């Protein structure tokens, strides 16, 4: 990398799209900027006078000109708007099949959690040529997960999930920055994303993960926290069965319908009274303070793994043991 480059490494499928648009806007603005500057300087020199009593020509305006310089910039703006919106959709709409990774931002580090159980801090290993989706939240204040080489970022907002996706195109190491001010060591909340050849990535993944997959950790938590006393597979418990629920819709007690996604599962763990499934009593206690964001993600991944074979979107879905919920215990 030369120190004099004016655009960062282009290392994702999105990056060239963003850069092309960037160059287009540079072209448009340079044209208008230079044209106007030249006219200002030219007029100022050409019509200059040192006679304070001289007066200018009696020109008051021109409707055709006013229309021209309102409408032409507007039309150009519309072109930029449409083009930029298209790119924006591409940036935020991930492909159907992605390699999923979870992350949490906390002051002042990024913790990345791979589905196979491996976790890393301020480092992220990903394979080249495969779409990766990072789903993340914050444990404290606002952060923003920013990959300049992939031209994407999104704010990490406590209490919500955000996501970014990218399809890395070049093997190499690139910056990860926190872009939203978060206090003392905001500028130290940086890391490196390592884009690797698929074989290297596989080798890295298999190098001592320990602790099992994320879904299996979620399964352990599911029984440690006694979730399984109420959420029984056959639906006979005090809470609804969680099998084959993720990605579906559910009717709520208040009559509305909710999509069962990461956000809803998280909300149901932390504020269970807020959206109760129709036909069930609001008896579930909150787990706020009992599970941290990383454990919530493990639980979500477990709930995801309870889908019967469909999807296959996650690498862990195959490895996590499905339908192995412990029998109901009545001693609670």
């Amino acid at each position, binding site marked *: 990398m030369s120190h004099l480059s004016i655009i960062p490494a282009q290392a994702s499928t999105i990056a060239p799209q963003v850069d092309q648009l960037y160059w287009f806007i540079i072209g448009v603005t340079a044209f208008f900027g230079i044209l106007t500057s030249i006219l200002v300087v030219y*007029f100022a020199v050409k019509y200059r006078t040192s006679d304070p*009593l001289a007066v*200018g020509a009696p020109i008051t305006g021109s409707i055709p000109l006013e229309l021209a310089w309102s409408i032409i910039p507007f039309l150009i703006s*519309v072109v930029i708007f449409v083009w930029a919106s298209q790119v924006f959709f591409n940036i935020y709409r991930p492909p159907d099949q992605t390699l999923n990774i979870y992350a949490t931002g906390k002051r002042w580090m990024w913790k990345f959690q791979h589905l196979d159980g491996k976790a890393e801090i301020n480092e992220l290993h990903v394979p080249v040529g495969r779409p990766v989706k990072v789903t993340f939240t914050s444990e404290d204040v606002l952060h923003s997960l920013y990959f300049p080489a992939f031209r994407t970022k999104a704010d990490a907002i406590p209490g919500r999930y955000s996501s970014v996706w990218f399809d890395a195109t070049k093997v190499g190491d690139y910056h990860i920055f*926190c872009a939203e001010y978060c206090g*003392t060591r*905001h500028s130290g909340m940086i890391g490196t994303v390592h884009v690797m050849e698929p074989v290297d990535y596989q080798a890295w993944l298999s190098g001592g993960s320990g602790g099992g997959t994320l879904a299996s950790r979620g399964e352990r938590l599911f029984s440690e926290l006694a979730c399984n006393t109420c959420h029984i597979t056959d639906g006979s418990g005090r809470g609804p069965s969680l099998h084959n629920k993720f990605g579906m819709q559910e009717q709520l007690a208040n009559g509305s319908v909710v999509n069962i996604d990461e956000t809803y599962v998280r909300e149901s763990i932390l504020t269970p009274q807020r959206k109760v499934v129709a036909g069930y009593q609001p008896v579930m206690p909150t787990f706020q303070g009992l599970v941290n964001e990383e454990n919530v993600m493990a639980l979500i991944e477990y709930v995801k793994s309870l889908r019967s074979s469909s999807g296959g979107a996650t690498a862990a879905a195959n490895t996590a043991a499905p339908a192995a919920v412990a029998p109901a215990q009545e001693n609670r």
Partner: protein
Amino acid sequence: MEMTLAEPRVDYLNVRHTVASWLLTKDHKRIGIMYLVVVSLAFFVGGLFASIIRMELATPAGDLVSSDTYNKLFTMHGVAMVFFVLIPAVPAILGNFVLPLMLGAKDVAFPKINLLSWYVFVIGFLFTLYAMVTGGVDTGWTFYTPYSSRASSSNVMMTGIGVFITGFSSILTGLNFMVTIHRMRAPGLTWFRLPLFVWAIYSTSLVQVLGTPVIAITVLALAVERGLHFGIFDPALGGDPVLFQHLFWFYSHPAVYIMILPPMGAISEVLACFSRKNIFGYSFVAFSSLAIAIFGFLVWAHHLFIAGISVYSALVFSFLTYAVAIPSAVKTFNWTATLYKGAIWLKAPMIWAICFLGLFLVGGLTGLFTAALGVDVHIHDTYFVVAHFHFIMVGGAIMGYFAGLHYWWPKMTGRMYSDAAAKTAAVIVFVGFNLTFGPQFILGYLGMPRRYHMYPEEFQVLNVLSSAGASILAVGYVLVAIYLLVSLFKGEKAGDNPWHATGLEWTTQSPPLPHNFDVQPVVTEGAYEYSKREIKVV
């Protein structure tokens, strides 16, 4: 010339000399001068913070100040400059001084409220200064939650109170000006004969009156959450942090137009005067001010494109942002066309105005990048945005303020400053400014996030350029302070109309009479009828 037959004249400055005569004055001109003193102090304080920031950023390591100190520096730089310089500079200093003169009025509609505005402003400023010297504040001038409500241990409350109080000064001044413009125009001074500066001040006042209460409510809600732990913004208490951003920017984006519209008005005056011409497309320039004021309320969420708002609302706000750019473009084209076939007299105010045009052009055009959704995702919260808004706020608003200050300085003080020194300063500021903020566009696109105390080494070259530019910029500003101060004591007497300008403010003496005019002026023509007019040479 006129000095040979001059005898001591009574003016607003020499009519009384006691301290009490200043502190209890209801004269809009004296109140304007008192704002000038406080705002200049705030500009100095804010500039000092900026200097330390740029010194720190000359090296990648955080080696000059600690991270906490750095965070406080950029926060207090922003707070001082936004709330105590950019918002009041042109309306409260120049507006107070020249608006009643331009209207042919004796004073503003409510002189006592005008004095009250100044006191409220000073009290707010003192609270903020107190917060700064007793430990400072580190939330960023944007006060984003939940950092500001939960995590920060700095003087958030005290600073918030300062900003809250200052807001009322802004509201009172806005109300006062609106009523003044409606009720106190001289006979014959119809709306379309008003100087464009008045249109700009009127549009600004609208925004001040309608927008400022929202920031007051937002700061209050923040205080309630921070002090009483009511869950409004903090998700841990059941609140929504993004709600804060909506509320904050619902004021603070229109506030950008509070900062830039009045300098735009001043630029229209200067360009017309030194081109000896009508402003090209007077009514388009006038209505573009109103259009900016109104559309300005509809674009706040463009600060939230990556903050988890829906992609469809992002589309709407992106589109509206392009819509608000059009009136600014229209103004710029009209200003350029005003120069065509003018009789361009390149005195110092004109040089400042031309420098304004160059910098505002860059500031406005780079807004097209930040409004473009697909590009904004990448440049949001990077130095690109820092560079963009400094081109608008400093390159635009401050250069426009200086153009206006140089234009009306002879009227305000009765003295001329050195034209050569003023032109030199304008050029130094222009060069220093471009060198400071130009490289930051590139830094931003390369990915350097804003509010970074330390940064990776590859960004150093551009940061050193930027810091070098900042020192040139500082020299320019110090030069302005020197020759303006010198002019007070050694400046040539200005005469009533040194620029041979149209406009009622130039028909009274310099410095003006305590009650502005001996006889009630009557207006019979538009604001810039240079071509029709026999200009009186004094």
